[in-house]
């Protein structure tokens, strides 16, 4: 069983991360989100955060900011910046990655899963409670 280290990190290997189911905890829209009208066009600035956890202890916790992007032929939420977490990824030989490298690996992990629908829906409707299984 994994434990939280005295330094507060939950150390995981990347392959272990891929075996952890994630459950949506909470998402919200930033206070500053707004629709601006300029020159006859409406520009939406919509952003927020989302939080996910693993349903088994010790709990993995990971959250990140998102922003709504409107691109030609495609609109949706994208991750913004690096995640916030209690996880420190380690190599197969249990050597911890530098913190920023670990966060980037976790960001790559986030980008490979489907979180947008649950997060955005929940941000506007409290009570959504979904589970993402790898």
């Amino acid at each position, binding site marked *: 069983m994994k434990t*939280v280290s005295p330094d*507060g990190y939950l150390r995981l290997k990347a392959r272990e991360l891929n075996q952890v189911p994630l459950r949506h905890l909470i998402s919200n829209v930033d206070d500053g989100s707004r629709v601006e009208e300029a020159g006859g066009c409406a520009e939406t600035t919509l952003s927020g*955060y989302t939080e996910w956890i693993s349903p088994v202890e*010790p709990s*993995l916790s990971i959250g990140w900011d998102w922003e709504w992007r409107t691109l030609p032929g495609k609109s949706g939420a*994208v991750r913004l*910046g690096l995640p*916030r977490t*209690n996880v420190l990824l380690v190599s197969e030989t249990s050597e911890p990655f530098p913190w920023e490298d670990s966060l980037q690996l976790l960001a790559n992990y986030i*980008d490979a899963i489907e979180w947008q629908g649950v997060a955005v829906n929940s941000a506007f409707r409290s009570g959504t409670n979904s589970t993402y299984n790898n």
Partner: protein
Amino acid sequence: MEVLSGRPHELAPQILESVERYRYKVFVEMLGWELDTPPGLERDQFDHAGTLYLAARDAQQEVVGTARLLPTTSPYLLGDVFPQLMGGAPPPRDPLVWELSRFAAVDFSTPTGNALGQFSSPVAVGLLEKAIEVAAAQGAQRLITVSPLGIERLLRREGFRARRAAPPQIIDGHPIFACWIDLIARCPPEPRAHIAQ
């Protein structure tokens, strides 16, 4: 701005009273915390002769920010009141870890009106840097604090090395969490990179 720090016997009585009045305005009147505290003053069981206080004052010597430091080897807020925020791990009892609590930096002349208003003032960064300096002088290597979830975002934006100890929990409708702050030099705020495409 100046930041005063010290234990009660090292601070003038009027400074401590100003801190308690300021805390009442922030935590009871502004944030609506239901605390068992005297009218107009805010104090709890963790305010005692060994508590280290910080008080930020403006040019008119009005208190514009407060914080409190406690060693985790004695009773403290997270360990005694919110241990569940550690996600099953034992709360730290370590001379290298101090708790930062009752952190507030509200500029009442320009209230923001949001849930993170207690951290909204530009005073917040200076106050936190001073708290880190004071804690480090006590031998601390890390701080732990009970905070609203959004604080982790703000700390990162300001270049502090902060991370959660466990998942946030919804308490009284608000997500709060236990936050580690490493006592290392603050890095300049980095631009919010748009990594995902």
